[in-house]
């Protein structure tokens, strides 16, 4: 009897944790999209006002953030600082690839960032500003969508995990 009880509670606990893990993706994505937008706006002001070179600008931005966004900017700055002849676009793309495991973005979000990277450091100031604005507005659109998805999925995954655990225990009992 006691073994059954322990096993049942283990199953319920693990399925609840799985549910929370699955909902985490939807919870964190809007926040990350928002901080990415802020980061791009900071990059804009770095380009307009401070006139910093890209590695320094990236470093300045990286210290203001946490998690995946920090890792992307940090990685790009490091790659550029190594001076291996990498273009800004290559460093940006590779840095995004490296920090994919720390982010909760979807393919569409990565695509926006990659497109933004295409003109990074390869055109004049006005063009880059325009490009930052474009990327920001696209990210804002994705953020709205992500927020909707979060509303739809967060609660569902959390309660689904718990209920599925209870159901499994009941069937096995």
């Amino acid at each position, binding site marked *: 009897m006691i073994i059954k009880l322990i096993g049942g509670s283990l199953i319920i606990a693990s399925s609840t944790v799985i549910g929370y893990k699955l909902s985490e993706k939807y919870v964190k994505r809007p926040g990350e999209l928002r901080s990415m937008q802020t980061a791009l706006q900071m990059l804009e002001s770095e380009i307009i006002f401070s006139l910093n070179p890209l590695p320094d600008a990236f470093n300045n931005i990286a210290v203001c953030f946490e998690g995946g966004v920090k890792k992307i900017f940090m990685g790009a700055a490091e790659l550029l600082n190594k001076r291996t002849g990498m273009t800004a676009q290559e460093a940006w793309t590779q840095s995004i690839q490296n920090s994919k495991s720390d982010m909760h973005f979807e393919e569409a979000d990565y695509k926006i960032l990659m497109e933004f990277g295409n003109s990074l450091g390869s055109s004049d100031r006005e063009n880059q500003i325009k490009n930052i604005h474009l990327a920001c507005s696209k990210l804002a659109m994705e953020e709205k969508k992500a927020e909707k998805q979060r509303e739809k999925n967060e609660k*569902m995954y959390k*309660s*689904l995990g718990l*209920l*599925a655990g*209870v*159901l499994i225990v*009941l*069937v096995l*009992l």
Partner: protein
Amino acid sequence: MGVELIFQIAAIGILVSVLNQLLIRSGREEQAMMTTLAGLIVVLLMVIKEVSNLFDTVKTMFKL
């Protein structure tokens, strides 16, 4: 065959209906229907032994 079986089926029924409501509210009607169907099948599998038992009893009763 005992009272536990009835309680178990009742609990599964309640849980499946809650799951159904949850999935419908988050706009996943297809999955909701699938869960209901899965619940039904599970309960049928649990009951089928008893049903065959009943048939056997009836058979022996009328010496078929």
